[in-house]
């Protein structure tokens, strides 16, 4: 994995992590407007970033951007334990 991909993956992990944390927070604070706004904004940023990442480096989910191409591209890229973090 080159440094550009690693940087993009890190950014993706960071955004998704913020969403996960907000998700749990909102489960017990469903009326918090500030958290709801953050959630909406970050989930949109993440959506864009995922499309850009999948276009360049391959699928994150089996039905992600550009899935179903030949050869079956889901299994082509390395698995999380195979990459150098």
């Amino acid at each position, binding site marked *: 994995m080159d440094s550009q991909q690693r940087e993009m*993956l*890190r950014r*993706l*992990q960071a955004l*998704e*992590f913020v969403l*996960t*944390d907000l*998700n*749990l*927070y909102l*489960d*017990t*604070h*469903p009326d918090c407007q500030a958290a709801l706004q953050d959630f909406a904004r970050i989930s949109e940023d993440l959506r864009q970033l995922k499309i850009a990442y999948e276009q360049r480096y*391959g*699928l*994150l*989910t*089996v039905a992600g951007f550009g899935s179903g191409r030949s050869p079956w591209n889901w299994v082509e*890229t390395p*698995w*999380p*334990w195979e990459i*150098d*973090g």
Partner: protein
Amino acid sequence: MWIYEKKLQHPVRVEKCDIAMARYLNAQYGGPDSELAASLRYLNQRYSMPTKKAKGLLTDIGTEELAHLEIIATLIYKLTKGVSPEQLRAAGLGGHYAHHDNALFYTDANGVPWTAAYIQATGDPVADLTEDMAAEQKARATYEHLINLTDDPGVKDALRFLREREVVHFQRFGEALNDVQDHLSYKRFY
């Protein structure tokens, strides 16, 4: 249902092979307070929860624990990648090799296989959420022990991240417990 995402929740880098540390990390792979135990406990308890908050939280934390299980597995995999039977034997993992070769397996740090007897579902939401809070504290304490057992900066970084998540989960379960208690007392009085 669940959808798999081909990435870790948090990056994992290890500096060099460390079989002994991989063995200790099994505490959080298949031990009593492991990520496996946490995930299976929460995803099973959610069916008998009375409130929206508790059902949501057990689903979402149970899912996050699976991502943590994958981080622990990746650490163990990387720390033992390509080691020989002799090296495993020298690190006290000859027994593991006899049963599992270089495969990962759900045991604790001493090789004891995971068992459902580690977890409970009483059907009583107060009892179950209180167990969940204790489980988060036990996992946090285990992570602190594991952090003390390594000087690999990459391993420490991943373990610190996981430790921090247990603190957050404990906080959220406490909030869900308050909500369940309000719900139960409301039912009693009206």
